């Protein structure tokens, strides 16, 4: 039974399991093949810190890469469409990931594999 929750200003997220083996790896493999520098990412978050779009919304390239690596494709589509492609992330990335091409390749893979 659902009780109306009291708002304490924070929420407790439910337990969640990611079954990596059950997920579809197609997209992440296509993207890694098209932009191999994806594999260099250390998830440091510098990209998200400098992001132009992130000034206005909770957009984060770090999160996108995390979702991609876990093959959680469903949330990807909504996230990726927020990017303005300005290229700041590419200039600050300490691992020299080609972030702009990465975004484009994810977008392309999403439209071509599951249209």
């Amino acid at each position, binding site marked *: 039974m659902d009780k109306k929750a009291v708002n304490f200003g924070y929420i407790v997220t439910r337990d969640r399991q990611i079954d990596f083996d059950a997920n579809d790896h197609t997209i992440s493999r296509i993207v890694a093949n098209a932009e191999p520098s994806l594999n260099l990412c250390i998830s440091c978050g510098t990209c998200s810190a400098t992001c132009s779009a992130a000034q206005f919304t909770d957009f984060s390239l770090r999160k996108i890469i995390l979702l991609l690596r876990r093959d959680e494709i469903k949330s990807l589509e909504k996230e990726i469409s*927020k990017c*303005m*492609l300005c290229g*700041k992330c590419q200039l600050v990335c300490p691992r020299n990931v080609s972030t702009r*091409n990465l975004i484009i390749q994810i977008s392309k893979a999403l439209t071509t594999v599951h249209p």
Partner: protein
Amino acid sequence: MTFDLFVLPFFIGLLFLVAVLVIKYSRWIALMDAPDRVKAGMALFSVNLLKSLREVFLESLLHRKMFKRNALLGYMHMSFALGWFLLIVMGNLESRIYSGGHINPPYYPIFLKFFIHDKRVLPFEIFTLPGFFRFTMDLLLLYVLSGLVLALFKRTRSKWFGLKRTTKHNSFDRWALTSLWLIFPMRLLAESFTAGIYQGGGFLTNTLGSFFALILPVQYLAYPAWWAYSTMLGVFFVTLPWSRFMHIPTEIVLIFLRNAGIEPGKYPGSFSEIEIRSCPRCGVCIDVCQMNQVGLTGSTAVYFIRSLRDKQPDISLNANCMMCGRCLEACPVGIDTLGLRVGARNVDNKILASDFSYLPARQETEKNVDVVYFAGCMGHLTPAVKRAMLQIFEAAGINYTFLDEDGSICCGRPLKLAGMKDAALKLVAENTSKIKRTNAKILVTSCPICYKVFNNDYKLDGMQVMHHSVFIDKLVEDKKLTLNPLGIKTVYHDPCELGRGSGIYEQPRHVLKQISEVAGVTEERANALCCGGSIGELNMSATQRNVIRDNALNVLCEPNPDILVTACPLCKKTFGPGSGTPVLDIAELVAESMNQEKPALKSKTIVEV
């Protein structure tokens, strides 16, 4: 006798060529946008036509831009174009004398020496020199043949012609080229043999003919030679519409349409079809392309345009371009390579629609300022530039507002260059309304990328767009800023989007000259190198970018400057990590110069060293 069977290959080829050209051109004209068609029609009856004819004469016949690049290369192209053109004109005049001024069938002037063996002084020539036409026609043939000899040398000695690399032609182009090359030697042989039989001809054909008559049975060889000459012309005409030589007729159409004021860069469209076919694949764009430095030679403008013409553009190859515009600057035909590439990227792109609904709702508050400052994404990435600009605004007492102080909405140019036009337009609309609400008279931006798109794609109701280097120059001219010499040597790097992209070369140099000694480098202004950080490029790895950056730095730091100055935050950010010389934006240096209390920059750099 004014007809012989051997003229048929030429005649049929010519009719075929004319038919194909008429069909192709009328289809393109029919597919043109209505306003463009009206523009083109109007231009037919205005001074534009004279301007176009002048340009056709200078570029298509004289090959002026080719001469500017290399004298030998220019001479080679001119001898083919002008030489052949004059052969046709003079041949026609000569043939008219025999037909009593009537227009002849097209093959008659071409094969005149087969039909007429006249050694008299022609009536017209009494006023000039006896044998004028015989002499001139031989001289012109010799002129074209001299170009042919150079063209043969160019195959192995392209460096003499200022080309390190030449175009790799496909087999079809080689066929067309071979037939073109054979036309003139065949004409020489045919005319010489005939001259040998009848003791006619001018200084060249007569001499050769007499010689051949001594050692060869010329009376048997002449007729086959005329057949061979006619066949080569026929083959060339039939292959022309599908070979690179389609540029010969199409470039004339292109010049005319361009002067009529039709905007390039609409791909796909009939104007771009004409542009694509105007590419002669001369290969001038190959050497200037910096992608060569990292072995990415497949996407050079010439090959990219060929892939468009073959209707097989390669998406990933097309992404390999920094959009620096060096090929556009070098192109003797003036084809808008960048517009075509962006257009092709747009067509290729199968990506998700962008969604910027998260951007903050538009505020209703209106401002009333003189100047609105837009740092841009890259401006925010180089806070020193931003700070320097604010200092300059304060010092000059400008009534300004900092539009993107709390974060930039990207200007849209990166999306546009990546071929995502619809997404770009959303950002353009967003920024336009923000900018307009300031009611400012001048929009100043620190980023040349923003500057270019503000100028070209934004409709700001007469608001003046200025790059900060131009604005600073204006402040200094208006005596609102006083600059003090810093006693240092600088080199100015022209950012692609500001220099070639927007034609701003002088204002930044004018400012710099007042505060430092500006040293020149080998490749500057329109020939300036790209820093390698380009947002137009999508595929290149960071390592490859660094190679291009380092090569550019080698050129820029050749005069050993104290400071390498640029006017683009992206260039600064790119050069910074690879440069032994400090890299500063022009705004930073100006802020340094107007601030007398602070220690001069020179001492600071010495400490750093």
